[in-house]
């Protein structure tokens, strides 16, 4: 496959589209007054979007939902929630979560 001019322009268009999404509210903020309810709703954005991304990563196993504690990712995720709650430390959470996942994968081989 050749990197044609058409392909380069398409990638550029993809990049501009992505950039404009990221710039959208940053650019209009201050020019358009945001209603108070909108500003309050924004405080929920990080919790909502990161949770929506994370839980599927824990419960899906081979393309299907597996809510068993024998699902290594779900179990490691639950342990990580407890560790994050107690320590509030990103590195410790990653270290414990990965260790639990590897331990379970090793035991279940």
């Amino acid at each position, binding site marked *: 496959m050749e*990197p044609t001019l058409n392909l380069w322009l398409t990638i550029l268009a993809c990049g501009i589209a992505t950039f404009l*999404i990221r710039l959208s509210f940053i650019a209009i903020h201050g020019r358009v007054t945001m209603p108070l309810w909108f500003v309050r709703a924004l405080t929920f954005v990080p919790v*909502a979007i990161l949770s929506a991304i*994370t839980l*599927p*990563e824990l419960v899906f196993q081979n393309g299907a939902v597996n809510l068993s504690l024998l699902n290594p990712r779900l179990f490691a995720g639950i342990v990580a929630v407890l560790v994050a709650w107690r320590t509030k430390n990103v590195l410790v959470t*990653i270290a414990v979560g990965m260790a639990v996942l590897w331990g379970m994968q090793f035991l279940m081989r």
Partner: protein
Amino acid sequence: MNPRTEFFAGVRAELPLMVGVVPFGFIYGALAIQLGVPASIAQAMSSVIFGGSSQFIAAPLIVAQTPALILVLTVFFVNLRHALYSASVAPYLEKLSAGWKILLAYLLTDEAYAIAIAHFQKEGSAQNRHWFLFGAGITLWSFWQVSTAVGIFVGAQVPPEWSLDFALPLTFIAIVLPMLKNRAYVICAIVAGIGGVVAFGLPYKLGYIVAALAAIAVGFVLETRAYRT
């Protein structure tokens, strides 16, 4: 804090996430080459689009000679969740110059946003906090470019049984937990998680947006009611 301190605090906060990001970039580069995407295009996607999930989805479409409009629309929908990030950080970047806004918008990815918003929401002087987002964003950007390039040229893969990709959900857990300051936020997180699972099958990762909007609405209503009583 002065700009320099903020910048390096951002770099340091972002570094643990690289455990998950580097294998992701590496696998993207290797996969794109295996699919038949030209090396120059595969690398350009990392710097021009700079959005992991959308690059993974775009690579096979490019090889399948998908029409340009379909490709651009697909990338647009996959990255649409970043509009929520843009709205969320906008109040903190309000006073910056146009140049700063453009630079920080370009660097506003999942991982940079997650680290920066946790910092922005803390108490204290906010004057130089954009340097924190810049430090986090440029760190992610550099690691993403290099790991992609290594993936492209080495072509080999980190053994999948290492499951290094799992470091990213673990990071997000560590970021979200301290943000759950009351019941409204806890229920918001639960609704978003369940919604993310239920709506997972929607195309273009739109499930994330649907689930997040529903959870934001629930959290908002709960907080409003708690405020009134």
